[in-house]
Every structure is written in C-alpha cells, then in structure tokens.
C-alpha cells in the first residue's frame, strides 16, 4: 500500500469527523492528514485509524477489554476495601470474609468473587480528587484533567480505534459495544465525534429474547425483511434521480452493512439460547448477569471493547439496602465471568476492568434524609482489574484507617489506563485523529508531578 493511498484514507477519516463537510483535498492541503496508517473502509465508527506498530519482538498480551462500569460510584468501604475496625459511623453493618488468597478480604455479600480472588487484583488506592459525576467519569475514563479546552475520547473509543478494524478485526459486530445504554452524561467519544460512540444494544439480555436495537427485531419474519428491503429500493425515487451521488452511495454502503447484520449470522452472538441453562443460571438471570455472558460471547468473537454499564451505585440514600440488593447480582455475574473466561482460555487475552467514577464517603450519613447513605468521594476509591496480562491475587496500594485518604501507592487514572494500553499494545504517544488537526496523543505525554504513581508494574 503506497503512502499516498494511506494518506488519502487518513484524510477520509478526518473528513468524516467534519461531518463530511471538508473535502479530502482540502484536508491534505491543510496538512491534517499526515499520519500514516492502515485503514479499512467502514461505516461503523470513526474509521480504523493507523494502529501504532509495537516495538519489535513484542506482542500484545491483551486483545479485548470488558469494562464493568459502576455508574454512580460504588462504595469502596462496602465492596473491596472494608474497614471493620473503623467504627459504626464508617464500617456500617457489612462484614468482611476471607478469599481464596491469603490475607485478602472482601465484603460478605461477594462470596463468589471471594473464590475468584486469585484471578484479580484489587487497587485500593485509586484517586483523582474530584467528586462530581461527570467530571470524575471523564477523568477515570480518559486519563485527562478537565478544562484544557479539549474533550478527549474514552478508553473504549481509543481501544476500539486501535484494536478494531485497523488491527485486523473483521467482524460485522461493531468494535465498541455498550450494554445496554450509553453512559448518557459522559460523551465516550470526545472530540472524535458521535461516530466514535459505542453501539448501544438497548433491550434486556435477561428477557427470553435479547432484542438488540436494530439488530434483532421482534415480529418481523426474515421473508418480510427481505421483501420490504426490495420494496424500499424500488421506491427510492431520489436515489434513482441522482445516480452516483457520493453521499447517497455512502448511505447505501451503511445500509448494506446494516442488512448484513440484520439478515446474516453475526447477530446470533446476542442469542443466549445457544448457551446452557446451567451456565446462564450461574451468571444470574439478571440484566447485569446476562450482560456479562453476552460480553464473554462478544470477546470470544474478537470484539475489542465491551462496556457493561451497570447503573444504580449513586447511593446517597439507603446505601446498605442498595448493597443488599445489588451486590449479590454483581457477585454472580462478575465471578462467573472470570471463571468462564478462564475456563475457555480467554482470560489471558481479556482485561476485565471493574470500577466507577469515584468511591463514596467513608463516613456514613445516618441522619435523615439519607438514612444510612454515602456520598461522592474522589479522594480514594477502589478499582479491580483482571486478565489480559494483569496478575491476579494481589492488592495494590491501600487507603487510610478509615478509608479517607490514600495511605500507600497512589494510583491515578492515567496509571491504570497506561498499564492497560501497554498490555493491549497501544502506544500512549500514538496520534489521535483530531477534527482541527491538533497534535494529540492517546495519553498525556508527561503526566504532571502529583498526578501519577506509575504504571501497575507490580502485576504486569
């Protein structure tokens, strides 16, 4: 492939980001397309962008990421960082239990996960200091500080850009999936624009049929699908009036891809009736549990990034009732996912990343109207990582006696994310396509002092 051709393709990518309003020629003239890289035409998202070559002799350990996004911010004190000796106003009613790793304890409501502790590492010293949902969600998922005039794309958008079609992924299923809804108040795509957003499945995988919006329809036979597609084409009078129009051709290309998915077999990845009932039960017949199972099926087929958007962790009020209700659901799904990935030999190549935008206040608000609530807390919180080259059975860092401060080994979002990128073979200095042609890289070039504790070399 000649350099010229590649440059043209890069120009396409950037022209796309401009809503197609800038010609490729104009882009080239303005020098916005200087980055070389292999590209594959695709309507799915921002097109595949040049994947940075790995240093010689190195291969990426991780191929995919499953992100369990705990929207709202789960309490570290009630999940993976319990402080039984901190008193009633901090510890609350939940007790720790031992795990299958000596000396590591987690919450009693996570008994299945306790049996899997050798597979994951708990990071008890996550910090960024922000306690607003949107800003914190941005910081945790982009490794960037807010307010510098740019809105960076999330880890998912970056990974699916570098590990998707440019890295040889050929599936019809888009390379970045979220179950079941977008994060909503978080852009995911940043300056890459709406086309870099994940494909949101909609629907509910715990229903008898997982109706994935657009892919799996209800009540329309395959024959009717085919008939009405033909009907639509016969009625497309505007297309017929302007044959060869490039915009309509681009739309037709997208339509073809859509029908490949609607009528082809690729959508069967969402058909959970292909799984054994026993396994489905182990995951838990809940929305979250079954989403974990779908996530495994997706990475099995090479999808590089899957987010499970698990909502409901913003427990200002009645935190402990919420834990009683939600932790068993988390426990079954997450634990079975780890075991199932391991059983199928997928855990070595799949990073599982658990966490939310922050933790929750260690001191419990017992008073009305909170009645045992915990509020936002960005100073210290917990994330969990497993697989894809991360060692299990470790604990990184620690929080202070009452879970209020980082005690040892702070881990900032950039530390965690740069570690994942290293395992995925993504060069943090790789250029990202930018609509105004700015020189921006996958990760901040040199994190300022006091904003990094270093990569997670302990477990890599």
């Amino acid at each position, binding site marked *: 492939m000649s350099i010229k051709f590649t440059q043209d393709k890069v120009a396409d990518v950037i022209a796309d980001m401009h809503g197609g309003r800038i010609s490729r020629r104009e882009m080239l003239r303005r020098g916005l397309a200087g980055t070389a890289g292999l590209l594959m035409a695709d309507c799915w*998202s921002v097109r595949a962008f040049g994947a940075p070559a790995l240093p010689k002799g190195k291969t990426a350990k991780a191929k995919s990421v499953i992100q369990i996004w705990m929207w709202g911010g789960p309490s570290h004190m009630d999940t993976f960082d319990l402080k039984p000796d901190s008193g009633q106003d901090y510890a609350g009613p939940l007790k720790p239990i031992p795990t299958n790793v000596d000396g590591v304890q987690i919450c009693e409501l996570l008994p299945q996960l306790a049996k899997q502790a050798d597979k994951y590492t708990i990071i008890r010293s996550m910090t960024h200091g922000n306690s607003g949902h949107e800003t914190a969600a*941005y910081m945790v998922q982009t490794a960037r500080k807010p307010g510098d005039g740019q809105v960076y794309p999330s880890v998912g958008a970056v990974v699916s850009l570098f590990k998707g079609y440019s890295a040889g992924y050929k599936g019809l299923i888009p390379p970045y999936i979220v179950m079941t809804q977008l994060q909503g108040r978080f852009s995911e795509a940043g300056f890459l*624009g709406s086309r870099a957003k994940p494909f949101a499945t*909609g629907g509910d995988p715990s229903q008898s049929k997982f109706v994935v919006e657009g892919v799996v329809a209800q009540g329309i036979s395959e024959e009717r699908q085919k008939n009405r597609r033909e009907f639509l084409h016969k009625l497309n009078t505007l297309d017929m009036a302007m044959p060869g*129009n490039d*915009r309509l051709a681009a739309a037709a290309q997208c339509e073809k891809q*859509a029908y490949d*998915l609607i009528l082809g077999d690729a959508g069967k990845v969402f058909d959970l009736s292909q799984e054994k009932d026993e396994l489905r039960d182990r995951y838990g017949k809940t929305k979250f549990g079954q989403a974990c199972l779908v996530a495994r099926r997706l990475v099995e087929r090479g999808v590089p990034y899957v987010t499970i958007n698990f909502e409901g962790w913003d427990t200002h009020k009645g935190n402990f009732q919420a834990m009683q209700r939600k932790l068993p659901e988390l426990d079954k799904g997450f634990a079975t996912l780890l075991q199932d990935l391991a059983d199928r030999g997928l855990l070595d190549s799949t990073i599982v990343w658990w966490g939310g935008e922050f933790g929750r206040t260690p001191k419990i608000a017992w008073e009305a109207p909170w009645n045992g609530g915990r509020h936002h807390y960005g100073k210290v919180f917990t994330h969990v990582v497993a697989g894809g080259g991360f060692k299990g059975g470790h604990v990184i860092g620690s929080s202070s006696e009452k879970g209020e401060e980082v005690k040892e080994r702070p881990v900032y979002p950039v530390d965690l994310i740069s570690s994942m990128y290293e395992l995925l073979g993504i060069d943090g200095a790789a250029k990202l396509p930018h609509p105004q042609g700015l020189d921006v890289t996958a990760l901040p070039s040199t994190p300022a002092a006091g904003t990094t504790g270093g990569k997670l070399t302990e477990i890599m």
Partner: protein
Amino acid sequence: MKTFLISAVIGVAVWGGATTPSAKATPFESDAALSPQTKIDEAVFASLKKLNIEPASICSDAVFVRRVFLDLIGTLPTAKEAKEFLEDKDPKKRSALIDRLMERDEFADYWAMKWGDLLRIRAEFPINLWPNAAQAYHRWVRDSLRENMPYDKFVREMLTSNGSNFRVGQVNFYRAVQSKDQETIAKAVALTFMGTRAENWPKEQLAGMAQFFSKIAFKQTGEWKEEIIFFDPAKTATLATNNLEQATTAPAEPAEKKKKGEGSKPAKLAATFPDGTPAKIAEGRDPRVVFADWLISPKNPWFGRNIVNRVWSWFLERGIIHEPDDIRPDNKPVNPELLAYLEKELVAGKYDLKHLFRLILNSQTYQLSSVPKSKSPEAEANFARYPLRRLEAEVLIDALNQITGTTEKYSSPVPEPFTFIPEDQRSISLPDSSITSSFLEMFGRPSRDTGLELERSSKPTTDQRLHMLNSSHIQRKIENSPKLQALFSAASGAVSKPPKPAKFRKGVKVAPPVSTGPTSEQKKAEVINQLYLTILSRFPTEQELKTVAEYMQAGSKREAAVDLAWALVNSAEFLYRH
C-alpha cells in the same frame, strides 16, 4: 380522522401527473425558467458561467414546501399544509410561505437550537453551565429570536451584560467556556462573532484581545450554583479555573487559592483590537463595552462577514468562505461579489437577519433542485445545486413523531434536581445538549463542547441505518401510531366505523350513509396518497403508485401499508433535505 379521510376520498383524486409537470422525469424539478431574479443569482450564475457549470433546474413546489419548512422552522409540513401549498395557484406563493414561516413559534425554536450549538448551551461537563443557567441562556436566545432582535444588539447584549446567570440569561456567554481565563474567553468571542480561530493567531494578537476580558468577575451568591457576572475594575488576573463541578454533599476539596495581585494597584490595560489598533480605555470604563462597540461597528469587516457567511452556510451547507468559522486571509471566498453583496445588505437592513434570510430563500440559487446537471467537481462549492443533507437529529425525531403522532420522553437524571421535559415538547426546543438521548447522539447532535460548526455531524453510519430499518423504537412508532392507524385499517379494507346515527347529531338531519361509497381501489389510492403527503410532502408518481399497488397484492394489506410507511421513512428522500 375518519371523516377527514372519507371526505378526502370523495373530494379529491389528484396525484401523479396532475401535479407533477408532465415533461419532467422526476418529481423534484420544475419547468420554471432559470433566469437570475436577484443580485444573489447574478453573482452565483455569473461565476457558474465562468466555470462552465450548468446549474440544476428550479425545484418543484413539492420539494420547495418541504425544504423551506425544514430549513426555516426545522419542521416537516403536515399533509394538509403540503397539499394546500401544492394546490395554491398564487404565483407568489413561495415568497408568501417564507414570510409566514418566519412568524411561527417553531422559527424561534429551531434557530435557538442552532444558536445553542454555537453559544455552547450545555448544563454539564465540560461547559458546566448548570441546568437553571442553561435554561435561562436558552430562553434569552429564543426570546431574542422571537422578537427578531437586530443581530448587532443580540451580540452586544451578550458581550456587555452584567447580572445573575439564572436571571440575565445572556451573561452565560462568558460562563459557557471550558475555562474562564481571559484568553479562552477571547477565543470564544473570536470564533463565535468573527468566525475566526484565534488559537492560530500570533500570540500578541490574542493576548491583546484577551485584555478586554480581563475585568470580568464571577461571584457566588447564597443560591446553589448561582453566579453574578460583572465588571470589576479592581480585578487583577483571571484565574484559569478548571470549571469543576462539585457535588453538594462531597467533603470540601481544597479550594484554589485566590491569586491576588502583588500590589493592590491594577495594572493599566494594554488592550489591542484584533486589527492591531491599541484601545484607549478610560479609567473605570468596562473594556468589554469598548470591545463590543468596536466589534459591531458597520466598518468592522469581521463582524458582518462572519454572520452573512454563516447564514449562507446554514441554508446552502457550504460557506462562501469555507469552513464558515475558519475565516483567515489565506482562506478565500469562492464568490467575493456574493459575499460583498450580502455584507452590504446586512448593514443596509440594520442587522435584521430575517431580511437576509428572505434575500437568500427567495433567490433562484436557493430554489435550485438537488438533482445535478453538472458533474464538475466545482459544482457543489459554487452552489450549482441545492446540497443534499441528512436531517439533523432533533428535526428527524420530531418529523417521525409528527408523522406517527408519537412523542419522546426526555429527562436528565444528574444532577439533582432532575430535569423532566414535558412529553409533547419538540426536540428542537430542548434547551440543553446535556439532556440524555441515545437517538440524538446517534444521529449526530453536537455535544456543544467547543461551539464549532463541525461538531454537528450529518454523516450516515451503520448504527443509524440499523436503528431506522429495524429498531423496536421506530417499529413501535409506526405500527402503534395513533395517527396512521386509520390509514392502515383503510388499506386492509377493514370496514371503517359508520358515521354516528342521525339521531345523535344535534339538530341536523343527515342522510344515511350512501351505500355506493368509495371503492376499495379508490380507498387504497387515497391511503397511498395520504402516506406520501404525510411523509414526503408530495403525491406519489404513477410509477410509485404501480409499485405500491403490486406490493399490496400479496399478503396482509395492513402489513403492506405499514411497510409502505416504513419504506418511506427509510427513503433518502425522507432522511435528507433535498
């Protein structure tokens, strides 16, 4: 609905040949002669002639009615509105329609949406206006458009007002930035009102302009998230704050230390206008006012050029200088005469943007068909035809809702108090781009992070196609449509409910229904006509009628009618402005 349907069946049977000019192969073009009608046309056609590019034909009435509704009020004409326009014999009906539409409420809604993109009306990260302030800002913009505030006044208000972000909506211009330091503000002003990217300027030029914004102060009040924006002569430096939201109940984060000037005496301002002239600012005078007066002066070429060029691009997709918000000396206008004419008209018309709209929309250039006659690669950039553009996200979902008689539910769960939007509210009138909606995101609603025009994407994607073709969201809208039910039933030949017996009608004796009602063939034709008028704002062609009739032969008639509605909303003709 039923009564309307039946009377329509008996009353009219017009379609195909009756309204489409017979000589034309497409329903998109008309026979009207192409000859420059206005100064705009003279400038455009002269340049086309020089480039040897043949312009497209004038668009048909059916195309025009749909186009001008979408372009002026972001709203699809109803079947009734489309039909009335098509049957109107007045030769001046096009310009009359333009005038009528500019007086509608949706005009203010739609243009407030457009301005909302540029003015960055967003409650949450990274703009962080906060819901109350976003709503106040939006309300001010909408009201200003509704009363047709002259453009120079509109801008001056935003640049010079003082007051509460919750009460004086326009002060939020200075808050709607990712950080409130003076250079960021200067860049936002340059981009929005001068159409230029100040980050590419020489450093001194930007620093000189930034001085005008160095005395803006932001003060908290007792009300949660309320802020007073005001001129503070004693202010010494603008902190580059991070604009971070803080949670109500979070423990206090270490506050950024106030950087007080070393001495208490404010340094003299070294403000310089972007054209290099140093500004003389009397002590105690608000430098923003000095800047605003310089900016909106009719002699300032930046001010008028920016807005006329943008307005042109809003209707014809490309700016005369393109991109419209990247004006710089080495980015030449494609048609300097046209640009100069519009600039002159802006000033002559006392900055009345409706005057500018009228000039453009009444031109033949705007009324060209989208079906090209020239294959020249320069054709599009020289306005040889109307550009094909996908409907904006908000306009598209509103159109689908109008067709089907359904609504969308919007709410904003973070932060408290939650924002709920009444179900019958149009999407074009949503005040805030933080309102969660996967549909709007999928179809390219801008995030309003930067105020750049290119944030709004009209590119087609596979997920959009999947959603339109096969999602339960769209499927439900069509199949359960309260508005289309009668048509679907009529197509299936189901016996429509007989009219109420005479005895129930007040005072009027009505003859019993005539047994020789419309035949099922006539009924079917009327269903097809209605669906075409409702969705595509035109009557079907002979060919289309034939295709549909064939499709309806086999299988369930109701299903076939549903499929017709489905096919029409999935056609390029529906999804695109054309």
